[in-house]
């Protein structure tokens, strides 16, 4: 019987500097037996652990064609702080991937709207790559990405590529712009982009990820525009210790965020995240 609590070790293949406090770690699994049966969905997460420090739930921001796993991590706590001292070639423990991920199959043929706030773009980056690779399967594609300042934005090196996706729009917005503004961000919260949006709600699906307060406002705005609850998906954040629906920390109503989520249909969890 496999023991789910044991970590699989992966070597750090590359570390990309995203912002002053965010890095993307590219992990190489080839040495671990995990490599063979590894499969993932955008939106899933892994339990990233450093023995002696602890574990943390981190979403997969992409898996390269050569099988390297990208995890984009902001330095905010114990585990992440310790991880930032790691160098290329060091090993870290991983478990997973866990969770359900974005419903990419179910939303085929629809217009897709992504709303991401801050680090919320990380679990959605896989969706963007999926849509680029399967452009014909989806309708109009709109990305709204907001961060505190233009400097806090991650994946800046991909913005040009995202702008050039056929039949798509990219809105970038920052809460505050004091210095340079090389990516032509607007000033304001993500919700301030909604009046400019080109997607019509009739055949659209919105995928939202960001701080919970941002998701609440975004969902409310989308509702006002005409989106039904069923057309909105959210990715939630909770404290997680096991990732497999046992430790109990991530319970939300009758669901575990780690096992039944982290991506939920808004209709299913609406009363539990205190809608506005």
């Amino acid at each position, binding site marked *: *019987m496999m*023991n*789910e*609590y*044991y*970590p699989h*070790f992966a070597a750090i293949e590359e570390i990309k500097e995203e912002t002053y406090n965010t890095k993307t770690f590219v992990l190489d699994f080839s040495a671990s037996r995990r490599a063979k049966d590894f499969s993932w969905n955008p939106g899933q997460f892994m339990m990233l652990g450093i*023995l*002696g*420090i*602890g*574990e943390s739930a981190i979403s997969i921001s992409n898996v390269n064609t050569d099988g390297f796993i990208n995890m984009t991590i902001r330095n*905010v*706590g114990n585990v*992440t702080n310790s991880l930032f001292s790691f160098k290329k070639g*060091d*090993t870290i*423990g991983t478990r997973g991937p866990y969770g359900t991920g974005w419903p990419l199959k179910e939303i085929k043929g629809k217009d897709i709207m992504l709303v991401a706030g801050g680090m919320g773009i990380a679990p959605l980056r896989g969706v963007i790559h999926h849509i680029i690779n399967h452009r014909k399967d989806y309708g109009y594609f709109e990305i709204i990405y907001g961060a505190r300042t233009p400097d806090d934005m991650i994946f800046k090196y991909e913005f040009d590529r995202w702008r050039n996706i056929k039949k798509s729009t990219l809105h970038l917005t920052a809460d505050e712009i004091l210095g340079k503004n090389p990516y032509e961000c607007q000033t304001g919260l993500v919700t301030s982009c909604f009046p400019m949006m080109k997607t019509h709600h009739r055949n659209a699906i919105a995928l939202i990820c960001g701080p*919970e307060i941002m998701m609440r406002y975004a969902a409310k705005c989308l509702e006002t525009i005409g989106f039904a609850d069923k057309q909105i998906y959210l990715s939630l*954040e*909770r*404290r997680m*210790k*096991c990732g*497999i*629906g*046992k*430790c*109990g*920390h991530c*319970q*939300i*109503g*009758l*669901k*575990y965020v780690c*096992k*039944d989520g982290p991506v939920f249909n808004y209709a299913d969890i609406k*009363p*539990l995240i205190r809608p506005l």
Partner: protein
Amino acid sequence: MKAYAIEKKDLGILIEGFLKKFKIYGPTKPGLDSTFDEIKSIDDLHLEYESTVLPPKRFFHPPRETLFEFKIQKGKYETKEIKDDEKFILFGVHPCDVNAILKLDKFFSGEFKDKYYQNRRKNSIIVALNCVKPGENSFCKSMEAGPFIDKGYDILLTEIGKKYLIETGSNKGKKLIQGLKLAAASDNDLLEKEKKCKIANKKIKKIMKPEWLPKLAQENLDHEVWVDLGERGGVAGSFPCLSCGSCSLVCPTCYCYDVYDTLDLSLKQGKRIRELDSCQLLEYGEVALGGNFRKERKDRIRHWMFCKFGAAAGGRNSSCVGCGRCIRICPSKIDITKVAKELRRKK
């Protein structure tokens, strides 16, 4: 199913026989209160107990346990398995606790199997004891978890006058008493058991109607009761919740745990440990940068109650069995049955 009867004074011989092969944990009374502990002889056993302070969940899901040990050498990690193959008998468990163990069984199996729990469960034999003297806080009858039991045990004892009635409920149980010279139970003994069952049922005064609770709880996210419990003066004669987490500690179905690592002084080896946690504690819902999804006390007590009512994710397998331990231990005198009643009454 064949039943046997044994004189109370002969129980010692039975225990001594078991002790040759197994460790036995059972109810003892070291001080004023009873608790489950190791039994070395029949004198340690206190079978007349009403309810123990702590439930027997610790024999399967210990309050603190090592998941694995690890070594760090030159940036490489090595993990080492922990083996726990102790075979034991859990002796004299009341029906409410047996039902709680069955709930935990269900919870720790499923999609991801918990090897640690299942291993201990596999190595254990449960000797249940029908509850002839339910305590004042018990409401197991409402939760269909007592005072008498008809499944889930390996061996079942029932006190009938000067004798104990012995029934087997599984192959494990049959194997345990195989070869022992036990007298078959007479019809009179079986009648006596039924009589005891009726008396025990009558002794239970507390009621909580479970079939309504999940729906009722779901519809009452913003009920006044939660504000009363968390911030104002409490509910039905109780004080407001103190968020001490005692209820989780004594609950036989509360299983939530925290996972953390410890390193020894050399920083070269350590352990990954899991420890019981409680949703009543502030840190339970805390995430990086100080975010907390259950910051307010009323949210935490509400979640615990929901879980016990079967209306939270964990609650599908950790709902209440009516043992009444939380009622007894609560320093604020919060009574779950009264909370359920208030939920229904107030709008």
